[in-house]
Protein backbone atom coordinates (compact mmCIF):
# COMPACT_ATOMS: atom_id res chain seq x y z
CA UNK A 1 0.00 0.00 0.00
CA UNK A 2 1.24 3.50 -0.75
CA UNK A 3 1.34 6.19 1.92
CA UNK A 4 -1.63 7.89 0.21
CA UNK A 5 -3.65 4.68 0.20
CA UNK A 6 -2.91 4.08 3.88
CA UNK A 7 -4.00 7.62 4.81
CA UNK A 8 -7.16 7.26 2.72
CA UNK A 9 -7.97 3.99 4.50
CA UNK A 10 -7.49 5.67 7.88
CA UNK A 11 -9.67 8.62 6.93
CA UNK A 12 -12.33 6.21 5.75
CA UNK A 13 -12.15 4.23 9.01
CA UNK A 14 -12.41 7.38 11.11
CA UNK A 15 -15.17 8.74 8.84
CA UNK A 16 -13.15 11.84 8.04
CA UNK A 17 -13.11 13.80 4.81
CA UNK A 18 -10.25 13.06 2.43
CA UNK A 19 -7.23 15.27 3.09
CA UNK A 20 -7.97 15.73 6.81
CA UNK A 21 -5.11 13.58 8.07
CA UNK A 22 -1.41 14.36 7.77
CA UNK A 23 1.34 11.99 8.95
CA UNK A 24 2.32 14.38 11.71
CA UNK A 25 -1.26 14.85 13.00
CA UNK A 26 -1.50 14.08 16.71
CA UNK A 27 -4.12 11.41 17.39
CA UNK A 28 -5.22 13.16 20.58
CA UNK A 29 -6.36 16.12 18.44
CA UNK A 30 -8.80 14.01 16.43
CA UNK A 31 -12.26 13.90 18.08
CA UNK A 32 -13.28 10.93 15.94
CA UNK A 33 -10.37 8.83 17.27
CA UNK A 34 -12.52 7.36 20.03
CA UNK A 35 -12.70 3.86 21.50
CA UNK A 36 -14.91 2.59 18.69
CA UNK A 37 -12.50 3.99 16.09
CA UNK A 38 -9.66 2.06 17.78
CA UNK A 39 -11.66 -1.18 17.56
CA UNK A 40 -12.32 -0.48 13.89
CA UNK A 41 -8.57 0.01 13.43
CA UNK A 42 -7.94 -3.47 14.82
CA UNK A 43 -10.40 -5.04 12.38
CA UNK A 44 -8.91 -3.16 9.44
CA UNK A 45 -5.28 -4.00 10.35
CA UNK A 46 -6.24 -7.66 10.37
CA UNK A 47 -8.17 -7.58 7.09
CA UNK A 48 -6.06 -5.17 5.04
CA UNK A 49 -2.57 -5.88 6.40
CA UNK A 50 -2.94 -9.30 7.98
CA UNK A 51 -1.47 -7.89 11.20
CA UNK A 52 -2.76 -8.38 14.71
CA UNK A 53 -3.06 -5.07 16.52
CA UNK A 54 -3.48 -5.23 20.29
CA UNK A 55 -4.96 -2.74 22.71
CA UNK A 56 -1.47 -2.31 24.19
CA UNK A 57 0.00 -1.38 20.82
CA UNK A 58 -2.78 1.11 20.12
CA UNK A 59 -1.87 2.89 23.36
CA UNK A 60 1.61 3.50 21.91
CA UNK A 61 0.29 5.31 18.83
CA UNK A 62 0.66 9.09 19.26
CA UNK A 63 0.57 10.37 15.68
CA UNK A 64 -0.92 9.28 12.37
CA UNK A 65 2.62 8.34 11.28
CA UNK A 66 2.81 5.78 14.11
CA UNK A 67 -0.24 4.03 12.65
CA UNK A 68 1.13 4.29 9.08
CA UNK A 69 4.39 2.71 10.27
CA UNK A 70 2.47 -0.25 11.67
CA UNK A 71 0.61 -0.76 8.39
CA UNK A 72 3.18 -2.58 6.27
Amino acid at each position, binding site marked *: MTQEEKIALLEDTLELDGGTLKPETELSSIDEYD*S*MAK*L*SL*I*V*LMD*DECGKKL*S*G*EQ*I*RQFKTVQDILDFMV
Partner: protein
Amino acid sequence: MDSMNNPFSLSGKRILVTGASSGIGRTTAIECSRMGACLVLTGRNEERLQETLESLTGINHQILPADLTDADSTANLVERVGQLEGVVLCAGQGSVIPMKLATRQRIAPAFDVNYFAPVELVRLLLKKKCLKDGASLVFVASIGGINAFTIGNGVYGASKAALNSTMKFFALELAPKKIRCNSVCPGMVNTGMITGGAVSEEQHKADMVTYPLKRYGEPEDIAYGIIYLLSDASSWVTGHSLVIDGGVTI
Protein backbone atom coordinates in the same frame (compact mmCIF):
# COMPACT_ATOMS: atom_id res chain seq x y z
CA MET B 1 -21.22 -35.81 53.77
CA ASP B 2 -19.04 -38.87 53.39
CA SER B 3 -16.94 -39.34 50.29
CA MET B 4 -18.88 -42.44 49.27
CA ASN B 5 -22.11 -40.48 48.74
CA ASN B 6 -20.83 -37.09 47.62
CA PRO B 7 -23.47 -35.81 45.17
CA PHE B 8 -20.91 -33.45 43.62
CA SER B 9 -18.58 -36.34 42.77
CA LEU B 10 -17.96 -37.20 39.15
CA SER B 11 -16.75 -40.69 39.99
CA GLY B 12 -17.84 -43.25 37.40
CA LYS B 13 -18.60 -40.58 34.82
CA ARG B 14 -16.87 -40.43 31.44
CA ILE B 15 -16.75 -36.85 30.25
CA LEU B 16 -15.73 -35.26 26.93
CA VAL B 17 -14.25 -31.76 27.21
CA THR B 18 -13.74 -29.66 24.07
CA GLY B 19 -11.21 -26.84 24.05
CA ALA B 20 -9.23 -28.85 26.58
CA SER B 21 -5.87 -27.61 25.36
CA SER B 22 -6.08 -24.30 27.21
CA GLY B 23 -8.06 -21.88 29.33
CA ILE B 24 -11.39 -22.84 30.86
CA GLY B 25 -11.40 -26.19 29.03
CA ARG B 26 -8.04 -27.27 30.40
CA THR B 27 -8.84 -26.26 33.98
CA THR B 28 -12.28 -27.86 33.78
CA ALA B 29 -10.75 -31.15 32.65
CA ILE B 30 -8.21 -31.05 35.48
CA GLU B 31 -10.82 -30.24 38.14
CA CYS B 32 -13.21 -32.89 36.78
CA SER B 33 -10.43 -35.47 37.08
CA ARG B 34 -9.93 -34.44 40.71
CA MET B 35 -13.63 -35.13 41.25
CA GLY B 36 -13.14 -38.66 39.94
CA ALA B 37 -14.21 -38.33 36.30
CA CYS B 38 -12.67 -40.22 33.42
CA LEU B 39 -11.79 -37.63 30.77
CA VAL B 40 -11.75 -37.59 27.00
CA LEU B 41 -9.93 -34.43 25.92
CA THR B 42 -10.31 -32.82 22.54
CA GLY B 43 -8.85 -29.72 20.92
CA ARG B 44 -6.78 -28.90 17.85
CA ASN B 45 -3.36 -28.74 19.46
CA GLU B 46 -2.16 -32.25 20.27
CA GLU B 47 0.89 -31.05 22.19
CA ARG B 48 -1.16 -28.85 24.52
CA LEU B 49 -3.77 -31.60 24.92
CA GLN B 50 -0.94 -33.85 26.01
CA GLU B 51 0.07 -31.26 28.62
CA THR B 52 -3.48 -31.19 29.93
CA LEU B 53 -3.53 -35.00 30.00
CA GLU B 54 -0.37 -35.05 32.11
CA SER B 55 -1.96 -32.67 34.62
CA LEU B 56 -4.99 -34.87 35.20
CA THR B 57 -5.50 -36.90 38.37
CA GLY B 58 -6.28 -40.58 37.95
CA ILE B 59 -5.98 -42.98 35.05
CA ASN B 60 -7.71 -44.10 31.85
CA HIS B 61 -8.02 -40.60 30.43
CA GLN B 62 -7.44 -40.09 26.73
CA ILE B 63 -6.91 -37.41 24.12
CA LEU B 64 -8.67 -37.31 20.75
CA PRO B 65 -7.44 -34.26 18.80
CA ALA B 66 -9.99 -32.78 16.42
CA ASP B 67 -10.92 -29.58 14.62
CA LEU B 68 -14.58 -29.10 15.41
CA THR B 69 -15.05 -26.65 12.54
CA ASP B 70 -14.18 -29.49 10.15
CA ALA B 71 -16.95 -31.97 9.38
CA ASP B 72 -14.66 -34.96 8.78
CA SER B 73 -12.61 -34.29 11.89
CA THR B 74 -15.74 -33.99 14.04
CA ALA B 75 -17.23 -37.18 12.57
CA ASN B 76 -13.98 -38.98 13.25
CA LEU B 77 -13.99 -37.83 16.87
CA VAL B 78 -17.56 -39.02 17.38
CA GLU B 79 -16.72 -42.43 15.87
CA ARG B 80 -14.00 -42.95 18.46
CA VAL B 81 -15.40 -41.25 21.56
CA GLY B 82 -17.46 -44.10 23.04
CA GLN B 83 -20.17 -43.71 25.67
CA LEU B 84 -20.36 -40.50 27.71
CA GLU B 85 -22.03 -39.35 30.89
CA GLY B 86 -21.02 -35.74 30.28
CA VAL B 87 -19.90 -33.27 27.64
CA VAL B 88 -18.46 -29.81 28.27
CA LEU B 89 -18.38 -27.49 25.24
CA CYS B 90 -15.53 -25.11 26.08
CA ALA B 91 -13.96 -24.56 22.66
CA GLY B 92 -14.57 -20.96 21.75
CA GLN B 93 -13.06 -17.94 20.09
CA GLY B 94 -13.09 -14.26 20.95
CA SER B 95 -14.02 -11.59 18.42
CA VAL B 96 -13.95 -7.81 18.58
CA ILE B 97 -15.78 -6.13 15.69
CA PRO B 98 -17.86 -2.94 15.73
CA MET B 99 -21.24 -3.83 14.21
CA LYS B 100 -20.79 -1.23 11.46
CA LEU B 101 -17.89 -3.37 10.17
CA ALA B 102 -19.58 -6.71 10.78
CA THR B 103 -19.84 -8.16 7.29
CA ARG B 104 -21.07 -11.69 6.98
CA GLN B 105 -17.52 -12.76 6.21
CA ARG B 106 -16.25 -11.18 9.44
CA ILE B 107 -19.08 -12.65 11.50
CA ALA B 108 -18.59 -16.18 10.16
CA PRO B 109 -15.47 -17.35 12.10
CA ALA B 110 -17.00 -16.53 15.51
CA PHE B 111 -20.19 -18.37 14.60
CA ASP B 112 -18.32 -21.31 13.08
CA VAL B 113 -16.37 -21.91 16.31
CA ASN B 114 -18.79 -20.67 18.98
CA TYR B 115 -22.11 -21.83 17.57
CA PHE B 116 -22.04 -24.24 14.62
CA ALA B 117 -19.20 -26.38 15.99
CA PRO B 118 -20.69 -27.23 19.41
CA VAL B 119 -24.21 -27.65 18.02
CA GLU B 120 -23.00 -29.99 15.31
CA LEU B 121 -20.89 -31.98 17.78
CA VAL B 122 -23.88 -32.50 20.05
CA ARG B 123 -26.08 -33.41 17.08
CA LEU B 124 -23.59 -36.08 15.99
CA LEU B 125 -23.11 -37.42 19.51
CA LEU B 126 -26.87 -37.87 19.71
CA LYS B 127 -27.09 -39.45 16.27
CA LYS B 128 -24.33 -41.95 17.11
CA LYS B 129 -25.93 -42.63 20.50
CA CYS B 130 -22.83 -41.62 22.45
CA LEU B 131 -24.78 -39.94 25.23
CA LYS B 132 -26.11 -42.25 27.92
CA ASP B 133 -29.50 -41.63 29.50
CA GLY B 134 -29.06 -39.23 32.39
CA ALA B 135 -26.00 -37.59 30.81
CA SER B 136 -25.27 -33.91 31.34
CA LEU B 137 -24.25 -31.38 28.67
CA VAL B 138 -22.68 -28.08 29.73
CA PHE B 139 -22.21 -25.29 27.20
CA VAL B 140 -19.78 -22.49 28.00
CA ALA B 141 -21.66 -19.38 26.92
CA SER B 142 -20.87 -15.90 28.28
CA ILE B 143 -22.47 -12.95 29.99
CA GLY B 144 -21.53 -11.11 26.78
CA GLY B 145 -24.52 -10.98 24.47
CA ILE B 146 -26.86 -12.34 27.11
CA ASN B 147 -26.64 -10.13 30.22
CA ALA B 148 -23.83 -7.72 29.33
CA PHE B 149 -23.36 -5.62 26.23
CA THR B 150 -20.24 -3.66 25.33
CA ILE B 151 -19.14 -1.92 22.16
CA GLY B 152 -17.23 -4.26 19.88
CA ASN B 153 -18.69 -7.39 21.44
CA GLY B 154 -21.69 -7.71 19.13
CA VAL B 155 -20.54 -10.63 17.04
CA TYR B 156 -19.09 -12.64 19.93
CA GLY B 157 -22.16 -11.80 22.01
CA ALA B 158 -24.53 -12.90 19.28
CA SER B 159 -22.71 -16.22 18.87
CA LYS B 160 -22.92 -16.88 22.61
CA ALA B 161 -26.54 -15.75 22.83
CA ALA B 162 -27.38 -18.13 20.00
CA LEU B 163 -25.59 -20.98 21.78
CA ASN B 164 -27.34 -20.22 25.06
CA SER B 165 -30.73 -20.17 23.37
CA THR B 166 -30.11 -23.45 21.58
CA MET B 167 -29.04 -25.01 24.88
CA LYS B 168 -32.57 -24.51 26.17
CA PHE B 169 -34.08 -26.21 23.13
CA PHE B 170 -31.70 -29.14 23.55
CA ALA B 171 -32.80 -29.26 27.21
CA LEU B 172 -36.44 -29.63 26.18
CA GLU B 173 -35.78 -32.16 23.43
CA LEU B 174 -33.46 -34.35 25.48
CA ALA B 175 -35.42 -34.30 28.75
CA PRO B 176 -37.30 -37.52 27.88
CA LYS B 177 -33.93 -39.29 28.02
CA LYS B 178 -33.13 -37.47 31.28
CA ILE B 179 -30.21 -35.81 29.49
CA ARG B 180 -29.78 -32.40 31.07
CA CYS B 181 -28.47 -29.36 29.18
CA ASN B 182 -27.26 -26.22 30.90
CA SER B 183 -24.81 -23.41 30.31
CA VAL B 184 -22.35 -21.43 32.35
CA CYS B 185 -22.13 -17.72 31.57
CA PRO B 186 -18.73 -16.44 32.68
CA GLY B 187 -17.74 -12.82 33.09
CA MET B 188 -14.18 -11.90 32.19
CA VAL B 189 -11.87 -14.81 33.05
CA ASN B 190 -8.08 -14.73 33.15
CA THR B 191 -7.20 -16.90 30.16
CA GLY B 192 -5.45 -16.46 26.84
CA MET B 193 -8.71 -15.25 25.31
CA ILE B 194 -8.44 -11.88 27.04
CA THR B 195 -4.69 -11.21 26.99
CA GLY B 196 -2.85 -9.51 24.16
CA GLY B 197 -6.08 -8.61 22.43
CA ALA B 198 -8.14 -5.54 21.78
CA VAL B 199 -8.36 -4.57 25.44
CA SER B 200 -5.20 -3.25 27.07
CA GLU B 201 -3.90 -4.09 30.56
CA GLU B 202 -4.85 -0.61 31.70
CA GLN B 203 -8.41 -1.03 30.43
CA HIS B 204 -8.65 -4.41 32.17
CA LYS B 205 -7.51 -2.87 35.46
CA ALA B 206 -10.19 -0.19 35.18
CA ASP B 207 -12.78 -2.77 34.21
CA MET B 208 -11.93 -5.08 37.13
CA VAL B 209 -12.90 -2.37 39.58
CA THR B 210 -16.46 -2.40 38.20
CA TYR B 211 -16.82 -5.98 39.41
CA PRO B 212 -18.39 -6.05 42.88
CA LEU B 213 -15.92 -8.78 43.86
CA LYS B 214 -13.12 -6.61 42.48
CA ARG B 215 -11.42 -9.20 40.32
CA TYR B 216 -11.74 -11.11 37.11
CA GLY B 217 -12.57 -14.79 37.27
CA GLU B 218 -10.06 -17.60 37.32
CA PRO B 219 -10.73 -20.69 35.19
CA GLU B 220 -11.37 -22.65 38.40
CA ASP B 221 -14.32 -20.37 39.23
CA ILE B 222 -15.97 -21.55 36.03
CA ALA B 223 -14.83 -25.17 36.33
CA TYR B 224 -16.54 -25.58 39.72
CA GLY B 225 -19.86 -24.40 38.29
CA ILE B 226 -19.43 -26.83 35.41
CA ILE B 227 -18.71 -29.66 37.87
CA TYR B 228 -21.95 -28.91 39.73
CA LEU B 229 -23.90 -29.07 36.46
CA LEU B 230 -22.19 -32.32 35.43
CA SER B 231 -22.79 -33.95 38.79
CA ASP B 232 -25.84 -35.69 40.27
CA ALA B 233 -26.21 -32.72 42.61
CA SER B 234 -27.87 -30.85 39.73
CA SER B 235 -30.21 -33.69 38.75
CA TRP B 236 -33.21 -31.38 38.79
CA VAL B 237 -31.51 -28.57 36.86
CA THR B 238 -31.93 -28.28 33.11
CA GLY B 239 -32.19 -25.42 30.63
CA HIS B 240 -30.44 -23.16 33.13
CA SER B 241 -27.78 -20.49 32.49
CA LEU B 242 -25.49 -20.32 35.49
CA VAL B 243 -23.96 -16.86 35.62
CA ILE B 244 -20.49 -16.85 37.19
CA ASP B 245 -19.32 -13.26 36.95
CA GLY B 246 -18.16 -11.77 40.24
CA GLY B 247 -21.45 -9.86 40.40
CA VAL B 248 -20.78 -7.57 37.43
CA THR B 249 -24.23 -8.04 35.88
CA ILE B 250 -26.16 -7.25 39.06
